[in-house]
Structure formats: structure tokens, C-alpha cells
């Protein structure tokens, strides 16, 4: 098995495309998205009611090579800017190293 980094971002749904672009530009070869998440944090309860998507969260998940992990994180962080969201990273093992 090969060690990779998993980067997870919970972000307001309208910013999802920016996060994706940022990750791909920094070299992420793939990603998964959980489209609807509710949450709570400094900005209060976020529950996607009211039709606008302005209260919806989404989760972005990408497994990336250790070599580019920091770049991806930095890029996403810049893309989020002042949007509502959090980012965290952890270690994962994969079988097919070349896939990520």
C-alpha cells in the first residue's frame, strides 16, 4: 500500500466550483463530492432551506500525492477566501499509487 493524503473541505455550496478548480489546478487527479451537508460553526446553523443554496454546505474530498498535498491545500485555501468553510487533511493508504 502507498501513503497518500486525503484533503477534505466543507464549504458553502456556491463555492464548490471554485474549490474544485483550485484543487485540479494544483494537480489533484480526481475528487468526490458529497453534495448536501448540514452544519454548524462560527457562522451559525447551516441547513439548506430557502431555495437559494446560500445556506447549503457541500463536502469536497480528494486523495492526492504527498508531494502536492501542500500545494493543493494552499490553493484551495486561497480559493475559499472569506467564504464559509473548513479544511482538514489526513493520511490514507491506497493500493494503486498511480491513480492519485
Amino acid at each position, binding site marked *: 500500500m502507498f501513503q497518500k493524503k486525503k484533503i477534505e473541505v466543507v464549504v*458553502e455550496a*456556491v*463555492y464548490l*466550483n*471554485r474549490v474544485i478548480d483550485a484543487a485540479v489546478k494544483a494537480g489533484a487527479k480526481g475528487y468526490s463530492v458529497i453534495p*448536501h451537508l448540514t452544519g454548524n460553526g462560527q*457562522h*451559525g*446553523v447551516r*441547513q*439548506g*432551506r*430557502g*431555495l*437559494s*443554496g*446560500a*445556506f447549503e454546505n457541500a463536502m469536497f474530498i480528494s486523495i492526492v500525492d504527498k508531494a502536492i498535498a501542500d500545494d493543493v491545500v494552499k490553493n484551495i485555501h486561497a480559493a475559499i*477566501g*472569506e*467564504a*464559509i468553510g473548513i479544511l482538514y487533511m489526513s493520511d490514507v493508504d491506497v493500493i494503486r499509487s498511480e491513480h492519485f
Partner: protein
Amino acid sequence: MIDVLSAASSNFLSPTILAFVLGALAGFFRSDLEVPEAITKGLSIYLMLAIGMKGGASLATSGVGLDVLPGLVAAIVLSFFIPLVAYGLLKFATRLSTVDAAAVSAHYGSVSIVTFVTATQFLTDIDVPYEAHVIAMVALMETPAIITGLMLARRGVASRAKGSLFTPDMVREIFFNGSIVLLLGGFAIGWATGPDGMKSVSPFFIDPFQGVLCLFLLDMGLVAAHRLRAAQSLTLGVVAFGLYMPLIGAVFGAAAGLLVGLSVGGTILLTVLCASASYIAVPAAMRLALPKADPGIYIPLSLGVTFPFNVLIGIPLYAACIDAIVN
């Protein structure tokens, strides 16, 4: 002549308004009643497409001439202009930051389609006709206010930090957002097929319309109550703004409607548009363009304060006043 009291009471006793009240009560007492989001979105697609089709089909009957132009121009101008008034009032009467005030003001220049639809239902109930092209106004008024709002927000930003006003995804959000596509698209379909073509789909798009609106307003009541419950950033001054700003917008709308020669029904609808505040298209645009503006202010204000005010009190009130002025 529209009698304000009887109008208000007939409004209160319509199943749609009662459904809204039921939803609001359920939300207020924290019932676990919840309309699935997919249903809410489905119903709103239905309502926008149906109202567009209705307008288009009616335009196909009445024909269209250059005389609609003043109305359409007035709608665009009002959407650009009302945020300036709103912003001025907010800076004067509340302590909102520049960016928050700008974001809120954009909502009030734009429109609430559901409030509009409720108003058309109200007019139908009391047998007051209105011009078909008013429905095109709804689409035209959605966007300009966003531009004014963003320009107002720039006042608070050092000039070198000013990037381009619009990113590509914002432009798409503004011009091709779902509501505009459905309203104008439905309008075009209704116009192209005419009343005859509409006949085949009227058991779906026309007959059950008021019932669907009923279900939708039940959900809006729930959502409005939830948003209001969760609102912690709303000060008294801001809530007051959510109640008097519709009246001010209404005055502009009524004046413009009479000026450009709309019928009583058309003037009432333009008034309702000016009095209403967006809670779908504008919040999404604001999150992208003004992330610093607090959605905990503009959404509960527009959805939890102004929307119920207009639906419960505003619509019959505007109708009665305009009727009194005209007759």
C-alpha cells in the same frame, strides 16, 4: 373598487394564505414537519414555468405593441434605483457595515417571485385583470439590483483591491439563473403555442395552480419561521427596515405603474414587485461576490420579515391604496 378591509379579509381566508400561516405556526412551535427540499424545488419550478406560460399565452391573445416598452424600462430602472434608497436608509437608520448594507439593499431592488405569484392569485380571486407583460418585468427586475448592490459595496473597499466586478460564474448566475430561464422560457412557450396550445397542458399548469401554491406557501411558512428563529444578527432597526422598506418600495412602484400607464391590476403587481425582496437569486450572487456580507442578516430579513409582511398585509394594502387613488 377594492375595499381594503374586505380585500384583506378575503386574502386572509384564502387557502393559500392560511397554508402559509399554518406552516409558520408549525415552524414557530418547532414541529418536525418538513417538506423535502426536492419537493420545494420541484414546486417552485412548476410555479415559475406555469406563471410564465400563463403570461405568454395571454400576451398571444392580447397582442403586443411598443406600448409595453415604458413598463419594461420602468421595471429595469426601479431595480437599479431602489437599492440606492434602501442603502441610504440602512446607513442612516442602522449600524450595518457598508458591505452588509449594500448586500441587503440589492435584495430589496430585486424581487420575490413567490410574492408576485401570490399577488396574481389575489387579483384573480377579486377579479382584477392585469397586463401579460408584467410577467416579463419580473424577470427584468431580478438582476439590475445586484449590480447596484455590488457597486455600493465597493465604496467600502480600497480602490486597488477592486478586482473585476463580475466573475464568469457570477455572470451566469445572474443572467441564466433558473428563475429567469423558467419565467422567460415559459413566457416564450406560452406565447408561441398560444391559448390553444396551452389547452392541452392546462389540467397540469393552470387548473391545479392555486393548490400547488397552497402547498408551496405551507413550506415557505415553515422556512420563514425557521430562518427567523435562527436569526441572531437581526437588530431591531434592521427588522424595522424589513417592514417599512416594502412600503417605500411600494410607493415607487405605484408611482411608476401609474406613470407608464399600467392598468390597476398591472400597477398593483409592479408595486408588489418593488415592495418585495429576493431570497433566491440575490443571496446566491451575494455569497459569491460579497462573501463578507453576513447571510444571517439578509436572508432572515428578506424571507422571515418582508416576505410574510407582504403576503399577509402588503398585497391587500397596496391593492386597496392603488384602487383608492385610481378610482
